[in-house]
């Protein structure tokens, strides 16, 4: 940490998830929010996995980028790489933004803290509890509505699942992908496609009709919700991602987020993916254990969740927000970022830019 001319403290923050593609990572949005914090200035260290992650080349947002080893390389390799980066940059905080990398960062949290690098992450038990495979049981334990589901290890289990859950039937991968099947034949095809790509088990889930709503929330680890902002998806891509959305005023959704955070003592950012039925019942479809890609909307609505997470990570006092702007919208757009191929070569060959 060092002082700047405007007397705000200046923190060096590492951020992953720089892939601002059609199914974007949250990193660029997190950085944008951090740069708008009135409390502190930042030097942003991008942490990338692929040389074509657009955030690497957004120099107005990212001061320097280093490549990280893939999560499958394990914690020791990651720790060594982060140690090298820390020696050069003096990282104060790291905000990981990918589901797949979170377990490694959680396992390393205390060792990173010993180096002086702070994180603010859920525990491994919290990650496991809200995993898609366990979500139904999790909902029952905490009084949350979750669609009925069956875990399938063989395609011939589909018929019984469909008899129980009815059609249309949602066939989901354990990590990603979901297909709405209207017949057993469609369900079988989806099972084979999804199991080939994402492995077993495949999830057969009851179809719930309604409006898709997401809530971005921040828990302080003691059961307190510091922020919760609901957003209705107004435009949805063929990958199910929100391309436009609007903040909502709905106490039911805020209470749902608070109940989740209190019940789990959630530590860090999270996103509740909800389907609200015509009669107003909110079904939780998924709980993501990190900020969503639309997280900048929380800052635009008056609750800068990424900036608050930095304060939590640093042990600074952070009070819950009570207000946010309702009717604030985001409309995502694609932008052809131009760079020179020497930058691409630099990050590809040397792992930094």
């Amino acid at each position, binding site marked *: 940490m060092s002082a700047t001319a405007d007397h705000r403290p200046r923190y060096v923050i590492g951020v992953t998830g720089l892939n601002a593609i059609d199914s974007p990572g949250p990193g660029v949005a997190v950085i944008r929010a951090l740069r708008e914090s009135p409390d502190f200035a930042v030097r942003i260290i991008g942490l990338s996995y692929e040389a074509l992650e657009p955030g690497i080349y957004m120099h107005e947002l990212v001061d320097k980028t280093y490549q990280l080893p893939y999560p499958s390389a394990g914690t020791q390799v990651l720790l060594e790489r982060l140690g090298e980066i820390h020696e050069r940059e003096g990282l104060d905080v790291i905000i990981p933004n990918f589901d797949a990398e979170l377990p490694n960062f959680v396992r390393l949290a205390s060792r990173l803290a010993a180096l002086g690098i702070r994180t603010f992450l859920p525990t491994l038990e919290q990650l496991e509890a809200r995993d898609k495979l366990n979500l139904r049981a999790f909902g029952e334990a905490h009084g949350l509505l979750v669609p009925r589901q069956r875990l399938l290890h063989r395609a011939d289990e589909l018929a019984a699942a469909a008899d129980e859950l009815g059609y249309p039937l949602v066939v989901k991968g354990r990590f990603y992908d979901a297909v709405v099947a209207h017949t057993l034949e469609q369900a079988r095809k989806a099972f084979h496609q999804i199991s080939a790509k994402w492995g077993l088990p495949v999830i057969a889930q009851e179809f719930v009709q309604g409006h898709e709503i997401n809530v971005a929330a921040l828990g302080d680890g003691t059961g307190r919700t510091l922020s919760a902002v609901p957003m209705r998806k107004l435009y949805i891509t063929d990958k199910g991602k929100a391309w436009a959305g609007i903040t*909502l005023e*709905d106490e039911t959704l805020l209470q749902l987020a608070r109940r989740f955070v209190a019940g789990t003592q959630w530590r860090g950012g999270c996103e509740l993916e909800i389907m609200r039925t015509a009669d107003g019942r909110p079904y939780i479809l998924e709980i993501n254990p990190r900020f969503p890609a639309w997280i900048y909307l929380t800052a635009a609505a008056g609750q800068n969740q990424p900036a608050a997470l930095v304060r939590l990570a640093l042990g600074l006092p952070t009070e819950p927000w009570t207000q946010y702007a309702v*009717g604030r919208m985001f409309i995502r757009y694609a932008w052809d970022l131009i760079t020179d191929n020497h930058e691409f070569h630099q990050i590809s060959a040397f792992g930094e830019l």
Partner: protein
Amino acid sequence: MKLKKNIATSETGFIFNPATGDSFTANALATEILQLLKQDRSPADIKTLLLNRYDVEPNQLEKDWDDLVAQLRDHQLLD
């Protein structure tokens, strides 16, 4: 009949339901009626005012009124 308290309306006919995120555009007459509803005027009051202000038969007004109420209810804008 009452509009939900949190429904936002503008003089230009824009309606926003902050609980659902839905937006609507109302025509000039519907906008006028919504403004009167927001002032807590009763349906009977509003109908009398419209009959005095516009060249419309009571039967036609009742039919149009019922259509509007059905749409407002359908879009969850009424208490």
